[in-house]
């Protein structure tokens, strides 16, 4: 056992000593958590609108209204706005031309040109723009209405401002029986990104190690180790433990860093760690299997990264499983990622206990058992084979 632990320790040290890993283990996953959180998370903006046109009270009024609605507003030139729209960087573009600005000043009819982008939510954002325009119109026409009753403009504005403070507007309160919103309830801005990247990078870090296993065999390290007082079982156990330790290290680092930097909550920490423990073991088994089935480091690195990315995409690490079409959701059950995702989501968002996540943990344990057994068998077989 001591031999196996020594081998595992050496594997982990090798992994950490590799300076190249510094970026991919410590920096890159957190950058992705940040990006995904900013892009899709709960606190993400509720729309991106360009209000093109020079300085005018119509333009600034519109911008003010939209910003009060948490919409991010910019003011590029019209052609630029259209180009940004086409490339998905904006949801809606509004053109405030000179004629519209002048008509607004004069209290006349205003026509605004609005173009909507190709992405899903753009239609809702366009409706927000319409509401903002309507609010501006009503603001303008109530001053005009008072003016026609002989109230001077400045007094009308003042009276309206005072009245605004006294009147409470009717409110719209939306509750949801929506299964989706309930499933996402309790999820902060960075929770999805953190859980997804945790699974993605734990698996990648393990699979990435399959190339080092091939290298160790090719350079004769393995055969030299076997020449010493180390049993083949110990070597196999050491390799599995080493991969496992790397996965655990990567996962634990991401859990700690994401909760410190982004305030990600992991629910019950012992349960979340248990999920990580089983998931890393699955990844370790897969890494050993890959490293013994392939005999070329380049191919192993390519296959490792490829499989890591594809499995993660299928397993909900890049896009929430809850939003998958039904068939894809069924297919995703083939990946360990989706089981770990479900377990983490239950623990993180729904405060699930051990019994509730037992089915997911069971499947992960079964996957781990199969892959570790296969990997160990394949590794033992490869020890006898020359490269």
């Amino acid at each position: 056992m001591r031999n196996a632990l020594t081998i595992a320790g050496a594997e982990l040290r090798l992994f950490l000593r590799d300076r190249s890993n510094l970026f991919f283990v410590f920096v890159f996953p957190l950058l992705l958590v940040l990006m995904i959180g900013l892009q899709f998370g709960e606190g993400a903006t509720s729309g991106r609108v360009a209000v093109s046109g020079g300085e005018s009270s119509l333009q600034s009024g519109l911008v003010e209204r939209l910003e009060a609605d948490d919409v991010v507003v910019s003011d590029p030139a019209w052609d630029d706005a259209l180009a940004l729209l086409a490339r998905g960087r904006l949801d809606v573009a509004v053109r405030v031309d000179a004629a519209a600005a002048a008509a607004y000043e004069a209290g006349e009819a205003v026509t605004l040109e609005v173009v909507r982008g190709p992405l899903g939510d753009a239609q809702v954002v366009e409706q927000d723009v319409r509401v903002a325009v309507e609010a501006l119109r009503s603001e303008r026409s109530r001053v005009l209405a008072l003016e026609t009753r002989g109230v001077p403009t400045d007094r009308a504005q003042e009276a309206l401002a005072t009245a605004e403070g006294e009147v409470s507007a009717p409110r719209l309160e939306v509750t949801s029986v929506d299964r989706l919103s309930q499933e996402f309830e309790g999820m902060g801005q960075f929770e999805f990104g953190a859980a997804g990247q945790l699974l993605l990078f734990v698996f990648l870090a393990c699979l990435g190690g399959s190339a080092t296993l091939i290298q160790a065999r090719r350079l004769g390290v393995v055969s030299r180790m076997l020449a010493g007082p180390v049993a083949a079982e110990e070597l196999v156990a050491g390799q599995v433990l080493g991969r496992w330790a790397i996965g655990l290290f990567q996962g634990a680092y991401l859990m700690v860093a994401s909760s410190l930097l982004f305030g990600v909550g992991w629910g019950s920490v012992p349960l979340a760690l248990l999920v990580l423990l089983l998931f890393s073991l699955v990844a370790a088994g897969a890494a050993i299997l890959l490293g013994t089935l392939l005999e070329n480091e380049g191919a192993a690195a390519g296959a490792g990264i490829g499989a890591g990315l594809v499995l993660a995409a299928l397993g909900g690490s890049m896009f929430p499983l809850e939003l998958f079409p039904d068939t894809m959701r069924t297919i995703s059950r083939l990946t360990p990622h989706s089981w770990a995702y479900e377990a983490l989501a239950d623990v993180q968002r729904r405060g699930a206990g051990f019994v509730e996540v037992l089915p997911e943990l069971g499947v992960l344990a079964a996957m781990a058992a199969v892959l570790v057994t296969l990997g160990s068998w394949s590794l033992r077989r490869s020890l006898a084979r020359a490269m």
Partner: protein
Amino acid sequence: MRQLLALTSSDLLQRMRDKSVLIFALLVPLALMTVFNLVFGAADDLEIDPVTVVISAPADDDLAQALTGVVRALDGTDELDVTVVETDGSAGRRQVRDGDAALALVVPAGFGEAARAGEPVTVDAVRGDEAGIGADIVLSVVDGVLDQVASGAVTARAGLAEGVAPADIGALVEQATSGGPAYDVETGQASDEQLGAGAALVAGQAGLFLLFTVSFGVTGLLIDRESGTLARLRSMPIPGWVIVAAKALVSFVLGVVATGVLLTVGSYLFDADFGSVPAVAVLVLCAAAAGTSVMFLVVRVARTSEQAGIVTSIVALVLGIGGGAFFPVSATGALSGVLDLNPVAALLRGLGTTSGGGGLTDIGPPVAIMLGFAVVMLLVSRLVPDRGVLS
């Protein structure tokens, strides 16, 4: 020249035998495209489902009835299919819970009176299981109507304060809410330079993996050094630049072929159309040149093939994600300008233009960006102190 060709072709042959090129350049991106297409394809479906809205509103409340009228009038506008069912409160909530309706609106008794007087009153909305964008739009419209009602109450109060006769207040509010100048919102013409969901996926993955593919030439150079082949080559009467140029040529050829295959296969599999073939070919050539130019820099800084692999992965992922290979990055103004100076973003932009029907004459800006990027990278690689493979 003969030496250059001989070195290039022997290297290309070697890379072909090496399965990693095949995996990185074709298999992984195609697999990712397939998965993303299956997953995102359905989510990006822009079809707006018909919405059934159950409204319970007091029959004797004209303001509540007006609200119902506005929601009813949404049917048929702007691709919306809205069915309004009037019922009492609890039935509405039940229908939503049972999945018979997407949205329930419960307008309380005394709504009109309270709203007109500016007293607090709440309209309850219950959003149903899988109610989509349609329901969000209805909610946004209802919110707008409530704003208008509030605006009427404000006007009434201000009018009274300014001495408008109470008998005239009704007309004043009417004029303030529905009279006055009309503000129209016209739907303008969208730019046709946008890639559809499938095409964006294909183009994005092709752009991202192009940067991985071009790295094989350079990694080859470092492997040659590690295995002693480089030293042997340099002992022969071959100028140093020929060896480097051969590797660059390998990168370029691999990049062009892989990207070409990915775009062709991708457009066939995922129903994307990139338009004019000569224009797309020019874009691919320029993108491969820009990608290869980064490798000149890598070869100056990386000492081992492993370091080179890591540097290229970092460069590829940063440029790829920044360029919108996975999802469009929200950006406007200066940041948007900076993001555009990246070959992946330029390739996507160019493919957007060609898929919108643009030809060779329309792809000037992206081509200029990619070639400019290549020139800058080459210049920088000359200036960076050489501590890499040929030092």
